[in-house]
């Protein structure tokens, strides 16, 4: 009996298989699916509490904001058709486009916009991911279905940029949460948005997101029917999948594989200058800060910092670690922001020169010890060198830095640390010496500049270096309210110079943005520094006939 049952099962499976094959073969009206591979995954699809770039990639496709950055770098209207602001810059009035509907078919109104903005203003803790964009906002109102009025307490120099990050959510999804914790824990696996694609499933375990094109998208529906995002644990496997055609597009091709991908048939590898940078963080928390930092005091010596800067061969890092897919970095505002407008071009980078590094330390009184480690007044130049464990590049960077530092009489011990632990160890505990980490700055320099301000060095804040400079803090506030672009540029150049000279960060490189897609299947991608996965590009993509 038993064995017969087993046989029946086998037959059943075979039948299922055969029918599956049959289905795959027939039917000419197959939906057009663009299969995207990446090595990351969104942390959550809840815009209130999403921090990873991957989440924002999905939000960009499924939600809409009042404004959006065009591929040219300019800000244009998205939900908003047009807008004006009062002469004092404190009142902004937006008129919405027509025919906007939620993915569930409900009509979209100005009050939804007002609700979202007011929710963020009211609960900055719950909406931690976006609350910095509503700084200086007093209130949003919806006098009618098509008009939104936002009032500010001080003028804001980058209003359009800020609004491009505030994704308008469907109020019924979010009204139910009464505490910040409840809101943060909401996973929002099937968001209701107004964007060109609608998430139909998000399986975190399998790392799969399926998005259907939303036919009623207000700027015109996409030309493809579906996008799937598949998370790969291993980039080799992802590249292989692209090669054999299992996937159609790859976000974040690893540097070490880019040359290989360029050689694939029917695959277009896309490289654009990017703004992601990596830096060496030097613990800059003042000794009198509460809680007191735990660091090697030698790091407070500007000469030690200068020597460290001399002992880093940035070009080698770019060549070896980035496989030459990037450029040497110097300031915290990458050249790509605002088409190069904000980057300070006058900064002269510290050259790689080990004998200079040794000379600087020698002069500063650090004497070479018998074990090859320099020492002054009992303080040895021996530092922890930590990096987040989720980055594939940093072990190599740490390894190379350690080798160079050794030549200068500086001993570093690399250690890979889980990013969450690393963060909690740094901010605000200040328990570290040197850390390698990186940033993906926003298109406007405001965010990356805020990272260096004193008041960000609190639990949950963005500062990790503990850099505290009242003059810098004041300049940061000034640039926020300076509406004149040239004046704002001058302030921002000054700020970059301060960070460069004080060296809480030694910026190592700016990474190129690396993408690839099957050119035999899809066409129409817009290749820009924003990546080919942004919604502007996805709206243009169509299958190759």
């Amino acid at each position, binding site marked *: 009996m038993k064995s017969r049952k087993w046989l029946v099962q086998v037959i059943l*499976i075979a039948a*299922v*298989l055969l029918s*599956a094959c049959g289905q795959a073969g027939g039917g000419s009206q197959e939906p057009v*699916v663009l*299969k995207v*591979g990446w090595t990351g995954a969104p*942390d959550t699809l809840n815009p209130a509490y999403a921090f990873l770039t991957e989440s924002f990639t999905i939000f960009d496709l499924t939600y809409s904001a009042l404004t959006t950055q065009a591929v040219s770098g300019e800000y244009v209207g998205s939900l908003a058709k047009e807008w004006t602001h009062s002469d004092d810059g404190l009142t902004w009035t937006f008129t919405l486009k027509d025919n906007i509907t939620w993915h569930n078919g409900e009509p979209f109104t100005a009050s939804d916009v007002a609700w979202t903005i007011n929710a963020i203003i009211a609960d900055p*803790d719950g909406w*931690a991911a976006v609350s910095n964009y509503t700084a200086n906002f007093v209130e949003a109102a919806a006098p009618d279905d098509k008009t939104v009025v936002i009032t500010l307490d001080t003028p804001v120099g980058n209003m359009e940029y800020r609004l491009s990050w505030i994704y308008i959510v469907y109020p019924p999804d979010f009204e139910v949460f009464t505490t*910040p*914790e409840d809101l*943060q*824990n909401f996973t929002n696996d099937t968001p209701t948005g107004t964007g060109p694609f609608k998430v139909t*499933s998000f*399986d*975190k*375990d*399998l*790392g*799969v997101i399926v998005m259907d094109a939303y036919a009623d998208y207000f700027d015109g529906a996409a030309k493809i029917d579906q996008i*799937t995002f*598949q998370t*790969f*644990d*291993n980039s*080799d*496997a992802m590249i*292989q*999948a692209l090669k*054999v055609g*299992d*996937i159609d597009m790859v976000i974040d091709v690893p540097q070490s594989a880019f040359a290989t991908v360029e050689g694939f048939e029917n695959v277009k590898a896309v490289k654009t200058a990017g703004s992601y940078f990596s830096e060496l963080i030097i613990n800059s928390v003042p000794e009198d800060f509460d809680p007191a930092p735990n660091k090697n005091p030698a790091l407070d010596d500007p000469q030690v910092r200068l020597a460290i800067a001399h002992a880093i061969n940035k070009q080698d890092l770019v060549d070896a670690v980035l496989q030459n897919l990037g450029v040497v970095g110097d300031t915290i505002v990458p050249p790509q922001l605002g088409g190069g407008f904000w980057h300070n071009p006058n900064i002269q980078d510290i050259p790689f020169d080990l004998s200079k590094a040794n000379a600087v330390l020698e002069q500063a009184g650090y004497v070479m010890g018998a074990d090859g480690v320099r020492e002054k007044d009992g303080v040895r130049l021996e530092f922890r060198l930590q990096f987040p*464990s*989720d980055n594939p590049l940093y072990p190599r960077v740490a390894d190379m830095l350690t080798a160079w530092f050794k030549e200068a009489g500086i001993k570093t011990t690399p250690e*890979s*640390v*889980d990013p*969450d*632990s690393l963060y909690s160890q740094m901010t605000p505990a200040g328990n570290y010496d040197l850390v390698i980490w990186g940033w993906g700055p926003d298109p406007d320099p405001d965010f990356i500049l805020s990272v260096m301000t004193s008041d960000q060095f609190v639990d*949950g804040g963005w500062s990790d270096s503990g850099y505290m400079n009242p003059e810098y803090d004041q300049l940061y506030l000034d640039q926020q309210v300076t509406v004149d672009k040239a004046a704002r540029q001058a302030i921002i150049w000054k700020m970059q110079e301060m960070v460069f000279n004080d060296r809480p960060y030694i910026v190592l490189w700016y990474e190129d943005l690396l993408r690839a897609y099957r050119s035999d299947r899809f066409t129409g991608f817009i290749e820009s520094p924003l990546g080919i996965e942004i919604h502007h590009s996805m709206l243009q993509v169509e299958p190759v006939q």
Partner: protein
Amino acid sequence: MNRRDYLLRKIFFSLVTLAVVVVLNFLLFRVLPGDPVRAVIGRNVRISADTQQALREQFGLDRPVFPDQFLTALGQWARGNLGVSWSLRKPVSEVLLAKLGNTLLLIGLGQILSIILGVALGLLAGWKRKTAVDVGALTFSLIAWAIPTFWLGIILLAAGSTWLGLPTGGIVSPSNVGKPLYTVLPDVTHHLILPTLTLTILYMGEYMLIMRSSIMEVLGEDYILTAKAKGMSHWQVLRKHALKNAMLPIVTLIAINLGFTVSGAIYVETVFSYDGLGKMFQTALVKQDYPLLQGAFLLLAVSVILANFLADILYTYLDPRVKAS
């Protein structure tokens, strides 16, 4: 009678081992610096001090480690509550269960193939001792022993993907992700070839060696001579008299090997990004997701202990001689 004593002994031993594992797991967990509350609720969620205190009380973290906390932990583990993964923000048990099937599939296939091939080859080698077959088999098993698992995986991955166009990772193609595995069998098979081959090559050598020495020992026994004297052919003797006796050590080996198989799975799943427990173990290690790591360890250890116990029971059915001794 005898069998009962034997089983009681084995049950007792399994329980002792289990206790060691559980205590070890508990201690390692407590040794970790940092706040255990985080381990319970996950890391990224910011919660108020009041909520933290409430949780502290709820999980008994304000009470002494021994015996209160230990017993609490024990009770939770017994109910399958292994805490919350820091990186996935999901209950560890849920995550583990989702991956268990895939790993069992891989390990199972690898074990079955390596047992069949290893036993057959070992039989041949031991029977035809000192012939070319034997020397070849011995050489193979020696090298298989010396090869690092992950490196063999890398080599097969490089060779298989370059020359045979086999997939380099995952369990199904991206287009089939999320579908039940039995509906996409050809794809699954395609993906399983390289990892299974890696495991098979690795374990085959060991089974072969054991089978070879086992069959050689058995063939030296007097009852084999008796069987031959009865007029049986070599093949008949081998099949009817030698095989079962020689297979007995293999049963024990399979059980003992499960521990090593799990190790193999960690390497192979890592190399082939195969979505199973082993891969997850490695990910948890890299992400330093301790609740996940320790939950996985507990699950793996308990499974191996259980499998050993089952093998012991199986042994009593195969070997009529089992005595309390």
